[in-house]
């Protein structure tokens, strides 16, 4: 059964230096509060997995938490680059960042395979692309029925997955609603999981086929209202698109970034 913990306690207990960590949320429900807690606790040498790194990983990479990034699209959506990510890849600041790069389809399939307990995902993918030349984790197999060549990638099986969701009930069952992305797969594929939620309620109010994660499939739950800001939580608050644009200026400059981090994460964040 999921254990209700403070976010501080959940991160402290379940995320270790050197862990492989997947923090998911496809534009929607990005676990920013958890990312900031990881920064505050100065976790180091993490292998970060995420289809769309987004600002949360830009911040964590800039803060020095990551040694490796596995991803499929690393930008500030609709705005431009992730400057902290680029600074780490191109100039090794604050430390060198190794990258392993996939397509969305391959990563989605790899999470799906991880949730499904399989060692690999098979897809009709990467045809003609140079990505297999720079990612040795992409292989090709032959279909034993048709002879067709199909791409294969190892499944994603993180040490810890972290997601944000709308709400949990008091037994620890969690509802994810709207753009559900890859969250269910991330949690089910991981050895441990932390779910932050907007609120804990008596009744989830879930429809019959809603995306509900049972308590016994989750390690820890932490209440974190507005825990996805500047991303959004359908039914709770909107995406702060203005901040996403503003981030471009903050992240371009190392000093501006560090000032922002101090003010917003180290000094004024946390519970």
């Amino acid at each position, binding site marked *: 059964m999921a254990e209700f913990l403070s976010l501080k306690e959940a991160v402290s207990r379940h995320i270790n230096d050197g862990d492989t960590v997947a923090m998911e949320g*496809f*534009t*929607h429900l990005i676990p920013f509060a958890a990312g900031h807690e990881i920064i505050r606790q100065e976790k180091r040498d993490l292998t970060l997995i995420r*289809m*769309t790194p987004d600002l949360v990983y830009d911040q964590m990479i800039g803060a020095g938490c990551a040694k490796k990034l596995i*991803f*499929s*699209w*690393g*930008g500030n*959506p*609709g*705005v431009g*680059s*992730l400057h902290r*990510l*680029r600074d780490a*890849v*191109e100039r090794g600041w604050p430390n060198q960042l190794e990258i392993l*790069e*996939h*397509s*969305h*389809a*391959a990563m*989605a*399939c790899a*999470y*799906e395979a991880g949730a499904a307990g399989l060692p690999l995902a098979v*897809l*009709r*993918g*990467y*045809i*003609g*692309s*140079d*990505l297999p030349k*720079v990612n040795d984790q992409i292989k090709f197999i032959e279909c034993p029925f048709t002879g*067709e060549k199909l791409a294969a990638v190892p499944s994603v099986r993180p040490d810890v997955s972290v997601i944000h969701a709308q709400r949990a009930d008091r037994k620890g069952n969690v509802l994810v609603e*709207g*753009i*559900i*992305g*890859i969250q*269910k*797969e991330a949690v089910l594929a991981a050895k441990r999981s932390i779910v932050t939620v907007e609120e804990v309620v008596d009744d989830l109010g879930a429809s019959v086929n809603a*995306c509900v994660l049972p308590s016994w499939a989750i390690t820890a739950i932490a209440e974190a209202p507005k825990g996805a800001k500047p991303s*959004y939580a*359908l039914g709770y608050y*909107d*995406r*702060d*698109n*203005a*901040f*996403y*644009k503003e981030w471009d200026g903050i992240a371009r400059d190392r000093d501006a970034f560090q000032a922002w981090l101090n003010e917003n994460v180290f000094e004024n964040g946390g519970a």
Partner: protein
Amino acid sequence: MSLEFTSSEMMSVTAARALNNDMTCFVGIGLPSEAANLARLTHAPDVTLIYESGTLQTKPDVLPLSIGDGELCESALTTVSVPEMFRYWLQGGKVSVGFLGTAQIDRYANINTTLIGDYREPKVRLPGGGGAPEIGTNAHEVFITVKHSKRTFVKDVDFITTVGFGRDGKARDNAPNIGRGPTVVITDLCILKPDPDTKELVVTSLHPGVTREQVIDATGWDIRFADQVDTTPEPSAKELDVLRDLKARTNAHHAGQQ
């Protein structure tokens, strides 16, 4: 009664016109999204728009800034998981058109959104493939819209993120279970299509007022022109109105958020 319009507007309107009501379009963010929604708000009200965030048949009132804005989900017929989107809908062959933008494109319509320079020591690191590599092969055909410049239109892309027709134009020949690939490229200057035989992109239509020299100057290879080069029809007043309204609504919406 010639209307005033910018080359960007010309590009968006022309790109929009490439879509029709019968198409199921997997929409990339940015220019493709603008064009696809313009099509939906003008001549193709029933065009089906799909975004990789899992939103099926969405009808946003403002353009999304990201691929997963709440607006997309709230106006969608239904929203599925990302693995389902890529597995059942894209790889399952349900997408007729993949609509992509790019940072670099070459003469064989190969697309690079990964990086400029060498992979291990990039001059510029770009966001990466995202959905494009499999959109490019699993969609029945691909439309590309991108601004024309020598930096963008290069002879050979630094990195093939998403295959057009490969380094030699033959990547799709005899490949099983692959879409037709890029069938049209729409820029702010012209329309290009792959030569039926060599698959090299050739200019088939120039936008009003654009000269061949402008296209030649903005292209990083020795660009060819079709035997018959058309003049792209101008945007209509209605198209321009709808486009400008859409952009104004969108700007107000995204700026208004704190």
